[in-house]
């Protein structure tokens, strides 16, 4: 790896700081502008006195003007203090970190499945364009690409849980008979299948479609003809020469997906009662948990930016033509 790349990798996140600030400002304004008051959720009943309401407001700093609240929050975030969740009564960073493993497990598995299968199927389909296999795969990809996640999740549950009774419907592990060690790993894996399948479909379709198109383009180029003329075996031509060149835009898309996947999926996690950050976001919106929402959005934007930097670096590694200065 050339030193300029290292320099770039160090410089790029710093350039993103103003961007994070702007995102922060927009998020803060939007959340505060949404109708509703977190205090209403906390009280949940009619009996609270005016004094108690005022006391809660003061405790959470909600009685301060908008700008004061914004600056105070920004100051804390700069010190890596994301504040205190109104709903969960816990430190926001602790809360997000405690949900992160579940999300990483779900999203990581989904990303690996979607990327590997997507690239593989795309390459296979591109070898014989408009054949029966290709047409079938393309049609399926179109369906997968346009299917709403929450609907697909419900269908998965109906078919594989209710009727075929193959997989559990809820949560990360069996609550009836908790297991230890290897048993627990298998149990979690069993619970993981349906949410991963549901969440992968869209990304699988996306990666597949992109790989297929890029492969088709690449296979028509002169250097492929040259490779064939040299008498290289066809599999070497396709997977060694063409795929490597077709991968560049695919890597970009996978990298972008990675950023979003780290944030978790609100819909998948909600349908399958998966205790990750996506559900945390869902649970924070209803009560207008300002600090938690801000914390989640801030972590999300940082993650997306980091994923972009990572993509750029991988780019340079697989394509020697890309040089960073």
């Amino acid at each position: 790896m050339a030193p300029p790349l290292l320099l770039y990798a160090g410089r790029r996140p710093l350039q993103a700081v103003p961007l994070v600030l702007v995102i922060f400002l927009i998020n803060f304004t939007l959340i505060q502008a949404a109708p509703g008051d977190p205090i209403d959720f906390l009280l949940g009943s009619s009996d609270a006195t005016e004094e108690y309401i005022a006391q809660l407001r003061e405790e959470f700093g909600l009685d301060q003007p908008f700008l004061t609240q914004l600056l105070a929050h920004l100051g804390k975030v700069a010190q890596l203090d994301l504040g205190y969740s109104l709903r969960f009564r816990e430190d926001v960073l602790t809360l997000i970190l405690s949900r992160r493993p579940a999300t990483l497990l779900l999203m990581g598995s989904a990303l690996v499945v979607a990327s590997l299968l997507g690239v593989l199927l795309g390459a296979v389909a591109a070898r014989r364009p408009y054949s029966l296999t290709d047409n079938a795969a393309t049609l399926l990809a179109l369906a997968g690409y346009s299917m709403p996640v929450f609907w697909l999740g419900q269908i998965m549950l109906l078919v594989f849980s209710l009727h075929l009774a193959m997989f559990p419907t809820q949560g990360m592990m069996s609550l009836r008979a908790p297991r230890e060690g290897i048993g627990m790993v298998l149990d979690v894996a069993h619970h993981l299948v349906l949410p991963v399948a549901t969440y992968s479909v869209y990304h699988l379709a996306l990666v597949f479609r992109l790989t297929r198109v890029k492969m088709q383009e690449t296979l028509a180029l002169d250097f492929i003809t040259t490779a064939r003329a040299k008498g290289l075996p066809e599999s070497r031509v396709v997977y060694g020469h063409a795929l490597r060149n077709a991968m560049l835009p695919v890597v970009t898309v996978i990298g972008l997906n990675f950023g979003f996947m780290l944030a978790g999926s609100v819909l998948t996690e909600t349908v399958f009662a998966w205790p990750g950050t996506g559900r945390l976001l869902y649970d924070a919106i209803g009560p207008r948990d300002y600090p938690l929402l801000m914390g989640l959005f801030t972590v999300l934007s940082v993650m997306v930016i980091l994923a972009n930097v990572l993509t750029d670096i991988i780019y340079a590694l697989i394509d020697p033509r890309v040089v960073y200065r």
Partner: protein
Amino acid sequence: MHPRAGSWWPNVESAKATGPHAFEFRLKAPFAPFLTMLGSVLSSGALIMPKHIYEGTDPRTNPANQRPVGSGPFTFSRWQRGGFIELNRNPTYFKANRPYLDRLVFQVSSDPAARLLAFERGEIDFLHWYIVPYDRIGQLRSDRRFTLYQKGDAAATNGLMLINHRHEQLKNAKVRQALAHAIDRRSINERALFGEAKVAQSHVGSTIAWAFTDRHDYAFDPAKANAMLEEAGARRSADGRRFPLRLFWAAGRDYEGRGAEIIKDNLRDVGIDVTVQTFDRTSFIDRVFRQWDFDLAMQLFTTGPDPTVSVTPRYHTKQIRRAPFVNGMGYSNPEVDAFFDRETAITDPAERAQAWHEIQRILMQDLPALPLYELPPIHAASSKFANVVTGPQGYIENREDAYEVR
């Protein structure tokens, strides 16, 4: 003090232990609902707190808030945030041979369809009434794998249509009464709640039997409603319409949405043009109870375990304030206020019941809200278990009597 106890606990002047099993409460003035509230887990009655853990600490940040300590049949075991909460049998529970179950696990599940599926699959054994959809009750009832429990009437939950008394037309009592005659509440029960509920006939639920009266109910009578609207001066324009109204409901309870659509139909028949609008719950509360920017709104109010703590706070003039679930309707009648202020000191049950009958007469005449239906708390449990819900306070009570059928 828990904010929910604000309506009754301030009456206590002092409380002290006078023996190992004796307590003495001194009240500032006679307060009739006191014993009911003391024994109630609804509306946060007197919950027993562990002194050795909370004494001398800030109760809001005490670590025991995340690892609760209590005296019940089960003890806290672990809590996977967003996943589940696990309780284990308390071996030193004060009742001998209770509880029967070894473990209780509460699964956190936000998706209504998915958790119902998990229940039907047998992954979950119990659903409390708030999350059992009324449109599925008939099907669950006929399935022998499941047992339904109708327990928890002490809360006496009423579904109502709140009426904004600041509205140009709705501030006229005659117009409000016309709405009551125009709306077919039986049809709402049949079509929005699949006949599982009961038509509400008053501002106190019928399960609070000592206080309830149905004498001041309205009959469904569109012709009379039309006549009353004419009398009130709300005449039809050339296109047959009298005036428009907005009806809000908060997403989450499907039956409220279906009920709103039926109300829209009913009111169209008497020349009132209703626009139904739905919000997420927090926006709805903001709109109705803080901005007071609504005409009609669908809302649930409990009326028990004692109407003093659940009915009075909605309709007293003092409660016209910008806070959730109070008098956002802007209703004020000094006559009913006087009853509200006086009835708590009446210790003779018959006399107090009479005061509450008077209150209901006035409320039904003034209609700060129109009671639509009484919601029965119907819980669903797996038939593998018995006695899952036993007490009048429903699922909030503990599971000490529940056992596995073998």
